[in-house]
């Protein structure tokens, strides 16, 4: 620090000499005044500083912490007596694990290099997963951030890797790849914050975000096969339910039909019976008035009607012993074939 000061003084003196030559001032006394004035001017400039809105300034006086200043214009002692350290406070800082962004933008480019050392880790069922993640953090205590830990970046990375492996190591590979992503990120965030607080690092972990989480390249296919098998399983179950849903309602309809038919049968039978019963009762009531004559009438009417039908009717006297026709009530077109017709009719 005093070295800087003497250098500075040399500079001032040179400038003073030049000024002396330029202005043609001959008197040594006057030159000394100019040098003194310039020194004061320099002191003035080096004691003014500004802090931007997103920053904080930490002032050390002779190496000892004096003050933390917020945004605005501030004064400090010149010539290195007070030293200013500026820290970006609101900026979210980011660390990438398992990959590197080479150029961020609308189409962000990633480096093609593999960072397997960082990303390959053992899972709880002793399998291997390839986990990429980012860590976002910001400074919450400029003093601690500057003076408690020497290599903040290296510490962050080491701790983040250690804790990610700790957390992933407690889960099965399939959980790590699928359902547990958010839980892992949350747990890592909490545990990292605990560690950073232990170190007094002065940073807040704002986010831990899992990026690509994959099986290692060589086993990727077999993982896909498991997924395909899961789909296949669902497909089969769906197919079965489809068949089920097709058949059951149809069968229910058919069952309804059977019952309806039975009910129809029942109605029909009962109606018919009712009708016939009513008819008989009516008939019977009339019949009772004159049973004998009605009976005879009905009989004769039916006989008349019925006996017209058969082509051959043989009327025999009870005394006749043989089966010879006594009278043929109907004319036969071909009498010769009568016995044959009789034989046919008898069947």
């Amino acid at each position: 620090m005093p070295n800087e000061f003497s250098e500075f003084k040399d500079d001032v003196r040179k400038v003073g000499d030049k000024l002396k030559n330029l202005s043609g001032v001959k008197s040594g006394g006057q030159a000394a005044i100019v040098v003194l004035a310039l020194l004061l001017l320099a002191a003035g400039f080096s004691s003014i500083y500004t802090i931007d809105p997103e920053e904080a300034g930490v002032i050390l006086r002779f190496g000892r912490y004096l003050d933390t200043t917020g945004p605005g214009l501030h004064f400090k002692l010149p010539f290195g007596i007070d030293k200013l350290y500026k820290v970006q406070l609101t900026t979210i800082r980011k660390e990438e694990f398992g990959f590197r962004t080479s150029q961020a933008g609308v189409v962000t480019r990633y480096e093609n290099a593999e960072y397997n050392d960082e990303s390959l880790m053992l899972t709880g069922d002793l399998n291997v997963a390839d986990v990429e993640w980012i860590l976002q953090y910001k400074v919450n205590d400029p003093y601690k951030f500057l003076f408690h830990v020497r290599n903040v970046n290296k510490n962050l990375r080491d701790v983040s890797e250690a804790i990610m492996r700790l957390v992933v190591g407690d889960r099965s590979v399939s959980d790590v790849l699928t359902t547990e992503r958010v839980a892992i990120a949350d747990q890592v965030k909490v545990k990292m914050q605990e560690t950073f607080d232990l170190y007094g690092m002065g940073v807040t972990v704002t986010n831990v975000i899992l990026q690509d989480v994959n099986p290692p390249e060589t086993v990727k296919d077999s993982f896909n096969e498991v997924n395909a098998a899961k789909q296949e399983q669902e497909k089969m179950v769906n197919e079965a339910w489809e068949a089920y849903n097709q058949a059951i309602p149809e069968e229910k309809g058919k069952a309804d039909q059977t019952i309806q038919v039975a009910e129809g049968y029942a109605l029909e039978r009962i109606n018919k019976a009712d009708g016939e019963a009513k008819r008989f009762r009516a008939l019977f009531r009339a019949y009772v008035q004159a049973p004998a004559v009605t009976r005879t009438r009905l009989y004769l009417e039916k006989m008349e009607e019925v006996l017209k039908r058969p082509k051959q009717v043989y009327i025999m006297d009870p005394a006749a012993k043989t089966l010879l026709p006594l009278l043929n009530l109907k004319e036969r077109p071909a009498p010769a074939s009568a016995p044959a017709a009789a034989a046919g009719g008898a069947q």
Partner: protein
Amino acid sequence: MKTWGILILALVALIAFKLCTFVTTEYNQALIIQFGKPVGNPVVKAGLHFKTPFIQEVKYFDRRILEWDGDPNQIPTKDKKYILTDVTARWRISDALKFYQTVRNETGAHARLDDVIDGDTRNVISNHLLVEVVRNSNDILTAENDEFDLGERIKLDTIQFGREALTKEIFAAAAAIVPQYGITLVDVKIKRINYEESVQRKVFERMISERKRIAEKFRSEGKGKKAEILGKMTKELRRIKSEAYRKAQEIQGVADAKVTRIYADAYNPGRDFYQFLKTVESYDSTITEDSVLFLSTDSEYFRYLRRAK
């Protein structure tokens, strides 16, 4: 000339000040060395301090938490699995005097830390099973997972200690040794554990076969579920059909019974008339064109053929 005098005086004062003082900053501490030997206690507090010019020089040491990152070590676990273990640690110089006397500087300290932490790591890891190093709890045994539902869970062992406990063991062992170097250990963490290259290949092969097995299980489970649903369907079909049949029979039976009662009620009073009527009516269907009738003159209808009486 008077002003020049002031300037020169100021310069001399400045040089004298510089020679008699030194500054320790918030992040470092200092030892005053006189003729190659440390004098007095280390200066830990940040600020402006005095020393004797020319004969005393100042050695600075860091006061912050420092990092240590060991080389990955190949260590066999208790179950003879070779893993690469990469341990990282935080430490700080807690006693600059002792530190200077024993290890001189950070490079020396790193060498000692390498010995101590690597050694303890080796001891602890080779005394435990691989799962104890990888896992931290038994949560995995109760986690819900559709693969575990297929019976995969059974294969996982219960652990007794877990990674954090082992790390603490390493830390405790190392932390007990390093104070003699003026060092305090802040934290030890297992940063990476990976299979050794040749083991890794075998692990990948195992993973592939394991995945295949799981895939097969999913498929056969799918087939099983399908068969189950289809079986259920057949059962349902038969149930629906038979229930409908039963109901239909019941309905018909009830109707038949009712019909029987109706007929009985109606025909019973005129039993003889019904018999006559029905018999006569039945001639309608029993006597057709193809019938051949042999009738006796004794019959009711033809008896007048013999005598009209």
